[in-house]
């Protein structure tokens, strides 16, 4: 029986799994001293799941890493971090290694990069075991590896311990990471964004596994996350970090129901909540009718997109016969998990990939078999916003040059002054000061860069905008302002848009129509409320049910409903 979530244990001194007092962490950088963590104190009781939330740069990850003594050499920490009674601050060498793994272990954000790609699973589990029990035999290691994989629900563990990491799915890899932590009997697991890189249905399973591990072994968990839905789902208590300090700490229900700090209130308000805001219902009946009657700008009929296989191999079919259309002035939200083909569809509409079967009409042009020469005039009528604002700009160009690039290509007649003027007025419309025109991309924050990305996509006044996960690399509060901006601009300029995202709540708040992709097939297509409230396909229902909402009371009910329908087992 799991501990009830409302009872917040205030542990006796000395009995806590983790006791951090007055932790200060400085980084010596070229630009001077950075005070990353400033006087943090917190404790974690046995079996408690504490979530540390905050935006990027708040110091939550640094705090987490300091618990295992994993800070880089440039960092200097002071204060005390008691793990099962041993102070980690200043600890090094053998004693630190003994503590790592046995008393506290860590799970990382990206399970693919947290495992060594060139060694089989059993060997990697064995390395931890050997570090603590030098005399362990190969046979014992293999036996323990099987047990460990079994305990986290990996099917066929006896056969699969000989596999390499790339032979497992993302969710399975994260399970194996948890298994590695468990194999050494760690009583405290530091989980740094353990589900951020995973699909939402897989996330639900990993959260369930962590809960199950806590219930079975009484393991304490420190959950570092920026996802308030995950917090509401899993945590017993929450610490909110802001600029290196914990500004608020409370039980999970208390925090969500009654946030005391203004920052916490703003943070919670910025989180999209599934079903609370629908772009379609926000329109008047007349506006809805206008969209319904508008001519389509994109029509896909039985669209197939294949990537050629290597010599002598069958091609990979990413999109398997999809029908949908986007009307003028309509925002079409395409939702799906990684590998579902959503990005491929977006790129094909923009002419960046080839349609290989069926029909795809984009602004009146057939894309199946299109030639670059014929497509070029169409290209200027399409804008594209990429997912990662950090890599979608040429670092050697100023912001002005980045935004003006499409003008240079498609409006060769324009003078430099005209271009410059247009760039400045665009900067204004994406709510950035025009002085930014002379800056370089790396001088801007992620949110600012994504605004620039939007400006660049809009510079030719496109009829169709394709936005591929434009906010998934951003912090929640930044995401919410970028989404607001997108909504404003779309309403003002009236372009049609394909909005690609893995987050149903975000899509619903933005898109008039939603399509759900599953392994290259469109399993659901309809207006927001229809898809979310009356989903036709089992997968859509599962997707909706897996998404944790940022409200612990509501989420507890949703989870129960989810378990009634789908059970608690591992399916990934």
């Amino acid at each position, binding site marked *: 029986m799991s501990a009830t979530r409302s009872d917040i244990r205030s542990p006796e001194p000395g009995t806590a799994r983790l006791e951090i007092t007055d932790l200060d962490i400085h980084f010596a950088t070229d630009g001077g001293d950075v005070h990353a963590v400033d006087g943090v104190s917190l404790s974690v009781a046995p079996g408690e799941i504490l979530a540390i939330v905050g935006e990027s740069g708040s110091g939550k990850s640094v705090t987490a890493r300091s618990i295992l003594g994993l800070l880089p050499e440039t960092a200097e920490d002071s204060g005390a971090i008691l793990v099962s009674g041993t102070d980690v601050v200043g600890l090094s060498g053998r004693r630190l290694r003994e503590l790592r793994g046995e008393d506290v272990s860590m799970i990382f954000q990206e399970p693919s990069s947290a495992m060594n790609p060139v*060694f*089989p699973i059993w060997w*990697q589990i064995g*390395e931890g075991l050997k*570090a603590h029990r030098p005399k362990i035999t190969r046979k014992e290691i293999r036996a323990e590896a099987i047990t460990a994989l079994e305990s*986290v629900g990996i099917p066929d563990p006896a056969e699969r311990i000989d596999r390499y990491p790339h032979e497992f799915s993302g969710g*399975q890899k994260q399970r194996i990471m948890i298994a590695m932590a468990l194999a050494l009997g760690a009583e405290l697991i530091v989980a740094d964004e353990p589900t951020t890189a995973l699909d939402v249905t897989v996330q639900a399973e990993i959260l369930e596994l962590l809960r199950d591990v806590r*219930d079975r072994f009484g393991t304490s968990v420190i959950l570092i996350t920026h996802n308030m839905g995950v917090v509401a789902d899993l945590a017993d208590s929450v610490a909110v970090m802001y600029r290196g300090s914990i500004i608020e700490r409370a039980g999970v229900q208390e925090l969500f129901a009654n946030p005391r700090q203004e920052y916490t209130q703003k943070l919670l308000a910025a989180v999209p909540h599934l079903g609370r805001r629908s772009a379609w219902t926000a329109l008047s009946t007349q506006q809805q009718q206008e969209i319904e009657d508008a001519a389509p700008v994109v029509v896909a009929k039985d669209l197939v997109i294949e990537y050629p296989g290597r010599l002598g191999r069958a091609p990979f079919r990413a999109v398997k016969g999809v029908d949908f259309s986007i009307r003028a002035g309509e925002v079409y939200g395409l939702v799906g998990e990684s590998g579902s083909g959503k990005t491929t569809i977006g790129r094909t509409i923009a002419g960046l990939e080839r349609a290989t079967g069926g029909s795809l009409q984009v602004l009146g042009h057939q894309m199946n078999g299109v030639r670059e020469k014929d497509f070029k005039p169409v290209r200027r009528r399409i804008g594209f916003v990429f997912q990662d604002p950090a890599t979608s700009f040429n670092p050697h160009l100023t912001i002005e040059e980045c935004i003006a690039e499409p003008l240079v290509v498609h409006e060769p007649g324009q003078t430099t002054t005209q271009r410059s003027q247009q760039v400045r007025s665009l900067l204004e419309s994406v709510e950035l000061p025009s002085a930014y025109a002379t800056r370089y991309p790396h001088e801007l924050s992620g949110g600012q860069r994504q605004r620039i990305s939007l400006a660049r996509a809009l510079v030719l006044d496109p009829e169709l905008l394709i936005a591929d996960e434009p906010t998934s690399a951003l912090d929640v509060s930044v995401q919410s302002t970028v989404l607001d901006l997108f909504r404003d601009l779309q309403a003002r300029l009236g372009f049609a848009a394909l909005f690609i995202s893995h987050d149903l709540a975000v899509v619903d708040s933005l898109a008039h129509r939603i399509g759900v992709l599953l392994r290259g097939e469109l399993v659901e297509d309809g207006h927001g409320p229809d898809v979310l409230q009356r989903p036709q396909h089992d997968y859509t229902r599962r997707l909706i049910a897996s998404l944790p909402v940022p409200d612990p009371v509501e989420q507890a009910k949703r989870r129960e409903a989810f378990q009634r329908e789908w059970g608690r087992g591992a*399916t*990934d």
Partner: protein
Amino acid sequence: MTTGLDTEVENTPASPAARPRRRAGGGLGRYILVRFLLIIPTVFILMTVVFFLMRITGDPITAALGGRLTPDQLAQRRAEAGYDRPLIVQYFDYLGGVLHGDFGMSYTDRTPVSEILTTYGGATFELVVYAVVVALVAGVPLGMIAARTRDRWPDAVLRVVAILGYATPVFFVGLLLKLVFSVGLGWLPVAGRISTRGELTMGTILNPSPFYLLDALRLGRMDVLMDVAGHAVLPAIALGVLTGGIFLRLVRTNMIGTLEMQYIDSARSRGVSEARLTTRHALRPALIPIVTVMGMQIAMMLGGAVLTETTFEWNGLGYMLAEYMKARDYVAVQGIVMMLAVIVALSNFVVDVVAALIDPRVRY
């Protein structure tokens, strides 16, 4: 609610997301076969390019004897050798010969090129093997130390050592070594592969191979063995230091990369010691790009070997190549360049196979 995730899981079908099973066996065999077959077109293209490049600059007879004979005599000689035929006919003639293992006859000393290749090729191969051993033994561990002590003084020192290693010309290192260890200290022989007395003893062996060390072992004579080994030390170091410096930098850069990977922190968080993280966890993934560059380096060493062989009068392919070039013996040069091309193609093949063995992701 004490759940048994483990029991429920057994009823779940295997993951659709997991990749289809691809075990090492068949996949690797096919991979190796494909890589091996790719050698054929590579060598063919190289052979064609070498042939036509050689012919563009004229025929061997005019090159060797032009000016010394009258034009009539030259034309007669050319006709005798078949160099007056259309180029394409000569090309197919040459191809046909190569297919039968006939690379032609060297013009200056009337030796079959195939014989030059086996005799001197063996010598070069022997030298390159020694040098690779030197380079590996020096470069890899030092590179690991440099990566481990990144930006601290051992790293700084090693980086300078590496630069000195690969920036100093081979012949200069060679001369320096000779000056100190042969002329100055008199510890090691100045040049050659073996002393005259050793050669005489060696002459008694049946079916001599081009590899002196092998023959000395077969002979079972300690004095001959020491003689052969002693002659190899300085050339091996001269050539090995150059490549060792490159290996050092290569290992350092790649190890710094892998030491920063999250899987290193992940293993560290489970208590794995720093020494083991360096020598096992970080080294093996770093080896994948290292092996690729090493393959190219070994190919480059054959070029470097020309200088080393000349410096130490080591009668290998490089030494002979220089000799034949001086004599403008294009037939022999063409054969030797061909041989080098084949060695490069073969070493690339070996690199691909080794990389596939290290990296489980490279299989198909």
